[in-house]
């Protein structure tokens, strides 16, 4: 089944003319037909458009185009509903955008298309990427392919579930506080959050501009390297993208991690850590040692303040970024007797509960009289958190942690308690505050029920090669990434 393949397996078959791009996208569309009724990873997709892109790829392959020129030629890749793809819908899983159709391609989409990818589908997410379970989608939750009574993680839950359920070859998501790594961990795939500034955000609907990054969901580490290389690079349309050369990430995948130093932060061994998650991560650490890495205990003393810092910084930025959804230039409009009432009515009707909660919290922490006590203080604590990491990276090449404190929880379990939901992001949030890179990959399963467990690797700013190298060496010495959920069809 072509939809089950990795990017490297599929491009191998396409290059040898054993399969066509049309067969590959058709296999994905068939799988979506079969399983997405129970998973709900996709909000929409345009089969005719995807097939037309596949035919164009097949034509290019027939006339001699190669994967060394176009590394994604003929590879179906689905997109989180927060990235602009020209002439496709863009809703951020919110009602407020109405029937919005993107008038242009975001930079990462341009890059995927230039690399030959079949860009298709809109993947479900928490509304405006605010959430950890995909339950905040205005169009209904996504279900975890390993147990459809459970959440897939969030906010990029659709992106993770679509890869885990073999509905496509790879997907894109975004990560503001863990929204790539956490769902990747809970669905058993590889998710990478690049360093802040590594990937252009032009065409990404902004949530928290000092934290957001776009990254890939894939079935193995090699594919993650392939996609990162395509997506990365400076872009004059995103002034926060960094003019740092893009390495050949594949070259780092040598399997040799002898002598690398990996830090284990003692602050991450918290009370709420599930014993099965802890056991899987400890076993993974031993495996890394067997492979020749040196594991040392490190300290990130301000870890306990990360969630509070994040929910000030992220909501403050969101309250400013989401001011643009006012019913004037695009989206649904609810009229009022004057412009102020129009804004309030439109936003009151268009935003869901979590988005309203965060905008109001963000407005409050920025409001007159509270700015110094909340926002400015949080920005200062952010400095301390970042310094923790930079100090740690003077001693180690990477940091290893669990990605999440527990495996996937049940749909509805935390949806009435926002604070408990926020605390489930405890291991992923610091990475965004510090602006470093992070990756989650499968490192085992819980028993009864069988649910994936994720291992998180954190790297220095622009240290993606090192975490990909370590992740690849670990993955090649285990079989976790080959396991697939048993879906009822």
């Amino acid at each position, binding site marked *: 089944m072509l939809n089950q393949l990795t990017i490297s397996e599929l491009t191998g078959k396409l290059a040898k003319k054993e399969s066509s791009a049309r067969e590959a996208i058709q296999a994905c569309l068939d799988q979506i037909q079969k399983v997405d009724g129970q998973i709900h990873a996709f909000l929409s997709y345009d089969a005719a458009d995807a097939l037309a892109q596949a035919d164009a790829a097949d034509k290019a392959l027939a006339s001699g185009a190669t994967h060394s020129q176009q590394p994604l030629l003929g590879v179906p890749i689905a997109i989180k509903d927060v990235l602009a793809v020209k002439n496709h819908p863009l809703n951020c899983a919110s009602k407020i955008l*109405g*029937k919005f*159709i993107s*008038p*242009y391609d975001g930079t990462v989409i341009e890059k995927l298309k230039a690399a030959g990818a079949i860009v298709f589908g809109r993947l479900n997410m928490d509304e405006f990427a605010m959430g950890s379970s995909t339950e905040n989608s205005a169009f209904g939750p996504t279900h975890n392919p390993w147990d459809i009574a459970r959440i897939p993680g969030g906010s990029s839950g659709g992106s993770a579930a679509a890869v885990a359920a073999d509905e496509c070859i790879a997907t894109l998501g975004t990560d503001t506080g863990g929204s790539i790594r956490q769902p990747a961990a809970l669905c058993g795939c590889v998710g990478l959050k690049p*360093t*802040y*500034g590594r990937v252009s955000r032009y065409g990404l609907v902004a949530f928290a501009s*000092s934290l957001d990054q776009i990254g890939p969901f894939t079935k193995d580490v090699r594919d993650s390297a392939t996609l990162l290389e395509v997506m990365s690079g400076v872009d004059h349309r995103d002034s*926060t993208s*960094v003019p740092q050369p893009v390495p050949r990430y594949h070259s780092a995948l040598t399997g040799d991690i002898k002598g690398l130093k990996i830090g284990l932060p003692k602050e991450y061994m918290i009370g709420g850590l599930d014993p099965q998650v802890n056991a899987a991560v400890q076993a993974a650490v031993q495996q890394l040692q067997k492979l020749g890495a040196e594991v040392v205990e490190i300290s990130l003393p*301000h870890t*306990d*303040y990360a969630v*509070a*810092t994040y*929910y*000030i910084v992220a909501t403050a930025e969101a*309250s400013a970024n989401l001011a643009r959804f*006012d*019913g*004037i*230039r*695009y*989206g649904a*409009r609810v*009229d*009022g007797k*004057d412009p102020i009432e*129009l804004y*309030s*009515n439109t*936003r*009151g*009707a268009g*935003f869901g*509960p979590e988005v*309203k*909660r965060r*905008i*109001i*919290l963000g*407005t*409050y922490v920025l*409001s007159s009289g509270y700015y110094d006590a*909340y926002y*400015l*203080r949080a*920005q*200062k*604590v*952010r*400095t*301390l958190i970042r310094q923790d990491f930079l100090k740690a990276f003077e001693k180690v090449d990477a940091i290893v942690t669990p990605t999440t404190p527990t495996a996937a929880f049940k749909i509805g379990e935390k949806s009435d308690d*926002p*604070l408990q939901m*926020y605390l489930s992001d405890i291991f992923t949030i610091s990475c965004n505050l*510090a*602006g470093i890179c992070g990756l989650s990959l499968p490192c085992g399963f819980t028993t009864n029920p069988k649910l994936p467990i994720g291992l998180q690797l954190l790297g220095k*700013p622009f240290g993606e090669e090192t975490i990909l190298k370590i992740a690849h060496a670990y993955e090649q010495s285990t079989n976790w990434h080959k396991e697939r959920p048993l879906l009822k069809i």
Partner: protein
Amino acid sequence: MAGTEIDVKYVAHLARISLSPAEEQKIGAQLGNILGYIEKLKELDVSQVEPTAHAVPLINVTRPDEIRPSLPTDEALRNAPAKANGLFLVPKIVE
């Protein structure tokens, strides 16, 4: 956890979001809870610490000041809820 009072009605007005009385009450209780948790940042002495706005400090990113293609008007208006004569239509602002 210590609750913190927040005037949700006033802040929602600042944020231009109309809320039902039920929403006001629910959000008020939840935000009180969250703000109570956030209070823990006051444990730290940050008097000697500089704030971080961005993790990667790029300063004065500029581009050449030259004309280049931008989104055509009809494309920019494509998703407008109300438009006429190449413009967005809005309620009357000045009497």
